């Protein structure tokens, strides 16, 4: 009989947790993905190596952009900076924002990092070799393509402009399309994820 009660208790708990899980799924502003995130290794200023797994235990936002981009990229990083400002100090310490350059030819790790830090001194800018960037973007299903002959600025880079959110255990948890890249929407998701 005791066994029965114990089982019942587990069952009730299970159903309770399950319902919790499913109701939470509806609540994120970003699109829920939940899959292991590719653990890249790239470089930041001073040629320091940075791996995604260095940030286990933190939430990591990743944006693929390039510093010669005057419109979409600064806007996305600006929104991420505003998102950070909507968090309290303790929450901020648990969030890392990373910009990965899709223009490794012009963006050295130094340039990429300086660029990112302009938006928030704790942001991190990363770059790498052509092969490394190709590999990372492929793993995240981000795309980029050099376009020649459009501008006197040299070439332009077509790129996907999603923002990715990696959870504390290194899972690719949420993805934000441009219409969802609003500071308050991302901050709301961060607060929810930090609560668990």
């Amino acid at each position, binding site marked *: 009989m005791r066994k029965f009660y114990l089982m019942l208790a587990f069952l009730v708990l299970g159903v309770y947790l399950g319902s919790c899980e499913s109701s939470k799924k509806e609540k994120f502003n970003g699109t829920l993905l939940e899959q292991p995130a590719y653990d890249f290794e790239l470089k930041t200023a001073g040629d320091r190596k940075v791996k995604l797994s260095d940030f286990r235990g933190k939430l990591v936002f990743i944006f693929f952009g390039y*510093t*010669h*981009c*005057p*419109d*979409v990229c*600064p*806007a996305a990083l*600006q929104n991420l*900076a*505003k998102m*950070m*400002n909507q968090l309290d100090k303790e929450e901020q310490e648990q969030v890392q924002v990373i910009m990965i350059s899709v223009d490794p030819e012009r963006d050295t790790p130094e*340039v990429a990092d*300086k*660029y990112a*830090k*302009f*938006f*928030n001194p704790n942001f991190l800018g990363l770059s790498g070799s052509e092969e490394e960037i190709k590999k990372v973007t492929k793993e995240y299903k981000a*795309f980029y*393509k050099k*376009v020649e002959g*459009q*501008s*006197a*600025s040299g070439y*332009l880079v*077509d*790129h*996907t*402009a*999603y923002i990715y959110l990696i959870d504390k255990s290194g899972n690719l948890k949420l993805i934000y*399309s*441009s219409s969802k890249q609003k500071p308050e929407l991302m901050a709301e998701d961060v607060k929810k994820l930090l609560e668990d």
Partner: protein
Amino acid sequence: MRLVLILMFVVAVAFAKPKIVVEEAWVRAVPPVSTMSAAFLEIENKGDENDTLLKVSSPIAEITEIHTTIMDEGMMKMRRLENVAIPAGKSVDFKPGGKHIMLINLKKHPKPGEKVKLILEFEKSGKVEVEATVRGMGMMEEHHKSHH
């Protein structure tokens, strides 16, 4: 009588003109490592004849181009525009995520609050000079707020 008619004709032709008004001109402040920025504005044609924006220049940039950002199957693409039609009675917006004036190879880094001169050249209205305000990243102001 004939003279009056001619005069009336001349006057009518003289009045059929585009009338360009530029508003809300601003330039995006960019990180010091960036060699480019973009200017945004609103061009209204209050006249009764169409006009076309042919080119733009600015003393802060070596090269200035008219660009547009397009979303194509999830890809953000920037493309150069040869010119932009400004139809009579219509307003054309240059705003983030859309048309913009691309400032290439900056000679001087625009700082928030500064004024940047833009010279717009129209097919019929000729040159129109505009003072654009440099807008910061927004979070700077918020930083200040939170410190007080």
